[in-house]
């Protein structure tokens, strides 16, 4: 069955996480940033593992974009 996405905040310190995410890209060109982001998605996808969750996340990410 379709697995649903975690709707509620699951990251204990969201501001600190966000700051680290931005810091990760410091000094990179746009192209390098895109590569880092793509690698990050693949790493996280493997960590999630559940194809149902990944499909739900892909649909949510695509929603509202062209």
């Amino acid at each position, binding site marked *: 069955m379709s697995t649903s996405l975690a709707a509620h905040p*699951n990251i204990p310190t969201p501001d600190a996480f966000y*700051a680290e995410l*931005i810091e990760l890209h410091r000094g*990179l060109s*746009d192209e390098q*940033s895109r590569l880092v982001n793509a690698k990050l998605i693949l790493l996280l996808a493997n960590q999630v593992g559940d194809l149902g969750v990944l499909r739900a996340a892909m649909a*949510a990410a695509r929603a509202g974009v062209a």
Partner: protein
Amino acid sequence: MLAPAITREADSVGTPTRVTFPYRPPGRSADGKRCPVLVVGAGPVGLTVALDLARRGVDVTLIDEKDTVSVGSRAICWAKRTLEIWDRLGVAAPMVAKGVTWNRGRVFLRDGPLYSFDLQSEGGEKFPAFINLQQYYVEQLLAEAAMAMPGLDVRWKHGLAAIEPHADGVRATIATPDGEYVLDCAWLVAADGVRSAVRRAIGLDFQGQVFEDRFLIADVRMKASFPTERWFWFDPPFHPGQSTLLHRQADDVWRIDFQLGRDADPEREKEPSRVLARVKAMLGPQAEVSLEWASVYTFQCRRLARFREGRVIFAGDSAHVVSPFGARGGNGGIQDADNLAWKLAAVLQGAAPPSLLDSYDAERVQAADENILNSTRSTDFLTPKSAASRAFRDAALALAQDHPFARALVNSGRLSLPATHDASPLNTPDAADQNFAAAMRPGSPAANAPLFDGNRSLWLLDRLGKDGFTVLRFAATSDEHRADVAPMEKLQGVSCVTVGLNGATGMLRDAEGLAARRYDAGPGTTYLIRPDQHVAARWRRPDLDAIRAALARAQGRAA
């Protein structure tokens, strides 16, 4: 010369509101005599620290180079903790009466609402999460209280011209319209703002981050029906690609912050016709608005490496400066004053060694770092500096409507909360077996709660800290209360307050059970509260020796 840390690049004035205070030329009594404390700068922080010191029995001289209140668009949001501090000094009530109260913020994306937040959902508080009140009113109310305060000598149009620090004091040269004079003081509190003359005289510099984005900060007068809430827009139709913040103030004045980006021309942007055009784009062409003030600012988040240099102590903007998203500048400065006054009084009155003031530096540097971190993150979110950063910002916003987790990533300002001084040398950590469940802990500001004294309602904080340290006890019966309180009353310079549990009478009554809950209190639970209403130590059972040891530690007398 140092660059001013928050740069006001251009102003546009409508109807300035200002009072003036009486100037007195330096009399014969003004020189020759050494004063215990000279406070330089009668802004919100200098006025608060001077009032607090005088209330604690210290003779204070307070000087300001001008004879009026702050002009222009400066602080408006004053947090609950600030109001509690001013209440201890007897000046909160007129602030609340004059200001407007708010607890709720709303965030909008383009033309639709994104989410809202309530900063005080629990209730049971004497003060709201925030009031909005123009800085010039705050200063006026504080100045009136200061001028009426015995032991506090306020000197308007007395500007600090030079200082000569010594091992046991500071010699200040003060300039007035009638010439200069010299004043010797044992301690000098530099509350002279972001361009601090004291900081420059000692040759200290700020460290931290500078932001390039420009913001137009406009105060407009209008009759409008927006609720009294903090409204924040990302990319609104009336100001595309940027953010806008709207706040109500007293007297039908509204604060509107327009983000302008890096390349905006400050001179052009502050032109009244241009400012009004932006406001009308927001409110509609019909809106009847007049401009009170507009300035174009850039912001910085920086601080001094340390806040004490021998006999000179820095407080407020002279020590640290932040961008205004989060209202952490003035509110952080008022907490500096709260932290400093009792320590300086204790040192001057011989109750504590001068090294107690090192804990001012430790605690308020920690608080400044917390404020700088939060303000920096908010400013970074609002002004992304790379394509990747902008993409994440836009993604968080795009997800926020449907995915609540993303709202926690959207950062339009993390609003001022008081620091908990977890690592403070003044704290006595909980003993391992005491299992306190309350969010409050040693180092936290003490929670408030509604109480009854007989038939009279009052607040717990009304009884904490005014006359020094307080031992706060919880008891289930009046017998228990009497038996335990007798030895406590022998503690020097400590007042005792007992709150009854489960409706117990013969002591303060916990009107709604909130005191017991917020302090996670059972019969016998005892807190040692500092004069600035922060928790120093707590126990499940009272123990006089433990209280004595914690008191010594909190006064910097620990071996």
